[in-house]
């Protein structure tokens, strides 16, 4: 059954940007629906980002014997994008069955991303899935597969350190600032000069809760301009050192050939600040800040090379963590395979019956305990009673499943519903699940008569 899952796609490794932009599905409306109509498929989901396109399909086992599903999907894809099929075929990878599952898990956990461990892909995957659900092309298997892939991604993030360290210069700077100051709320920063990387670092600082951002530039007009876009306060270049007494983090990136901030200036500034810590980030080459500044107590100076080193170290740490992450992916892939197998009719019937027997035995044990010592005949009669009640109750649902399987070839949908209704896979139920589908009013606790303690029942009847 798992052989019916196919995944075709291309990513930044298999295809250059020219190919990726040609076959992007970002602006294609209803690709899933058209693919579903064109090929013998049951479920479809497509993910398209700037670095990858992934098309996940579940074939209709009863209709696809003669046709090669992958070729059909590629054909439809090339046609939709008006591109040459052979070009597309040359740049795509294809996975089937558990390979497809494992690949999807890797994508969700960001193990396949250009910068491993960056979390954007998960959000993109979620929105693609939402689209597939809305258009009705995601059903039993894709539903389960995607939900599983989200939980795999979460497990990888929490159980490995794959995303715990910064892999960009500007993020590394913010991370260091947090290590020095703790929370950045209430802190102030100054951006001296301009430049893409420095501005990016300043933006990250703002996002981390910096209270105030001063912007200083040799050309005051430019400072004013930047201040407007970044909600900062412009500062005259001549006032820069005087203002430093109130600034905790300084990002410098000017084109000055000599140092503009010297150690002896900072010594004075520190006195005024009563030694509160300062963090200098010098992105300029040649450097703007005298390296001796790092020798002062409570002052920390990182230049572009220091930051690069931090980033490289973090990158290699991520590679190491990827091994752990892949082990998680393998484990979860195996678990998914087990679930796929259980979607067949016979295992479900077996599970249903054993669940019923389990419940019957437990209830019987409780009753026997309450009754105290009884003779063997009574005991046997009670056993027969509970077992036949549970079996007879299940008779109709089992007949229904058998009938549907005979009529439709397979009845994944009903089997899945049955498994979920009786919680045959013992999945933990998240109380927040499907919160978006619920209206605010019906927030009553899920309570029913069967969950109530028998003692409570007795008390109530006693009162009557």
């Amino acid at each position, binding site marked *: 059954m798992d052989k019916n899952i196919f995944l075709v796609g291309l990513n930044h490794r298999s295809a250059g940007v020219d190919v990726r932009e040609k076959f992007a599905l970002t602006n294609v409306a209803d690709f899933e629906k058209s693919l579903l109509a064109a090929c013998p498929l049951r479920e479809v989901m497509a993910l398209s980002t700037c670095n990858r396109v992934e098309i996940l399909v579940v074939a209709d086992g009863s209709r696809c014997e003669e046709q090669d599903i992958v070729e059909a999907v590629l054909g439809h894809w090339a046609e939709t994008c008006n591109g040459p099929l052979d070009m597309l075929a040359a740049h795509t990878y294809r996975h089937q069955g558990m390979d497809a599952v494992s690949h999807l898990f890797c994508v969700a956990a960001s193990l396949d991303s250009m910068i491993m461990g960056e979390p954007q892909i998960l959000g993109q995957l979620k929105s693609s899935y939402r689209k597939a659900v809305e258009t009705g092309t995601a059903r039993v298997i894709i539903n389960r597969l995607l939900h599983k892939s989200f939980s795999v991604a979460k497990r990888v993030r929490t159980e490995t350190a794959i995303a715990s360290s910064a892999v960009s210069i500007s993020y590394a700077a913010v991370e260091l600032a947090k*290590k020095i100051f703790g929370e950045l709320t209430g802190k102030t920063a100054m951006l001296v000069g301009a430049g893409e990387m420095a501005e990016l670092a300043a933006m990250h600082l703002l996002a981390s809760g910096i209270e105030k951002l001063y912007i200083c530039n040799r050309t005051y007009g430019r400072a004013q301009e930047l201040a407007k876009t970044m909600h900062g306060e412009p500062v005259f270049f001549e006032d820069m050192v005087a203002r430093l007494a109130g600034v905790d983090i300084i990002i410098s990136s000017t084109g000055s050939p000599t140092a503009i901030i010297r150690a002896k200036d900072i010594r004075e500034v520190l*006195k005024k600040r*009563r030694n509160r810590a300062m963090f200098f980030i010098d992105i300029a080459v040649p450097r703007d800040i005298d390296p001796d500044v790092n020798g002062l107590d*409570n002052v920390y100076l990182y230049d572009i090379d220091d930051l690069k080193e*931090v980033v490289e*170290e973090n990158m290699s740490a991520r590679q190491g963590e990827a091994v752990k992450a892949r082990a998680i992916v393998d484990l979860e892939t195996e678990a998914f395979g087990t679930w796929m197998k259980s979607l067949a009719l016979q295992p479900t019937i077996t599970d249903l019956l054993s669940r019923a027997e389990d419940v019957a035995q437990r209830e019987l044990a409780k009753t026997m305990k309450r009754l105290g010592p009884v003779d063997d005949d009574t005991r046997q009669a009670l056993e027969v009673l509970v077992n036949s009640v549970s079996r007879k109750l299940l008779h109709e649902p089992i007949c229904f499943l058998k009938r549907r399987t005979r009529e439709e070839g397979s009845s994944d949908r009903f089997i899945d519903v049955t498994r979920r209704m009786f919680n045959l896979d013992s999945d933990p139920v998240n109380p927040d699940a499907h919160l978006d589908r619920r209206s605010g009013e019906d927030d009553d606790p899920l309570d029913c008569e069967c969950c109530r303690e028998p003692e409570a029942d007795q008390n109530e009847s006693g009162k009557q």
Partner: protein
Amino acid sequence: MGLPDILPILVIGLYFLGTGLYVLGSALRGERLKAAALVLAGVGFALHFLDLVQQLAAADSHGALTSGRFLFCLLGFGILIIFLLLWWRLRLRFLVVVALPLALVFYATANATTGIKASLPPMLSGLFFLLHIGTLFASMAMLGMAFGAGLAFLHLEKRIKTKTGLKTFQKDMPSLDTFDKVNHWVIVIGFPLYTIGLASGFVWAWLASKRVFSFDPKEILALVMLGLYAYLFHQRLAYGWRGRKPAVMAIGVFLLTVLSMLGINFLVPTTFHGFKP
């Protein structure tokens, strides 16, 4: 073997396991290991409390309350209380790696002194006990935390300053600022407490023996420490010391405290603060 007999072994074992597990948990980034360590330490802490209560209940005279065993027990307990306060106020769980071993050391020391029957002068009692021992121990427990925070600060600061890169362990550590805050609060609250403790000791000595200062080695060292503490207090609050210097100094003052507590009380024969028979 009744509960009182195995209680110390249990407490020491639990603290030891807790410390080991926590360090292991930090190294392996295992939140569950850390949680298990904290639970073990928590049970140890409860038993530790029970031990103290038992000693209090068993004390028919004040003599027992000034025994080395009880005092060291109390000091270990105090360190954990201060840690809990820091955890609560500054969310600084990290310091458990300092608090637990210190509590372990003092608790173990307490039980090492059981053999030595305490015989402090009976004048150490009642209000004096609270003023002198309570305040001094509270300030010493705080210094213990400042000691740990100081070591952590120096380690992390060196890593950041020399750009040697932050490994998992350093990444899990709180920020430099947090460690500095511990130092700040210890000095702001600990110094007045220490002063009260010392002053009450001298007042009591004057009331009891009409002598304020008796050139007891412990008193001399205590005065030296008061001087250092006062210097630290002044530099930090008036002069604006931060970071490295107060951290180093707090470490020094704490080590001196331990020296005076263990070295003089046990080894110097002439002191009347001693735990010798």
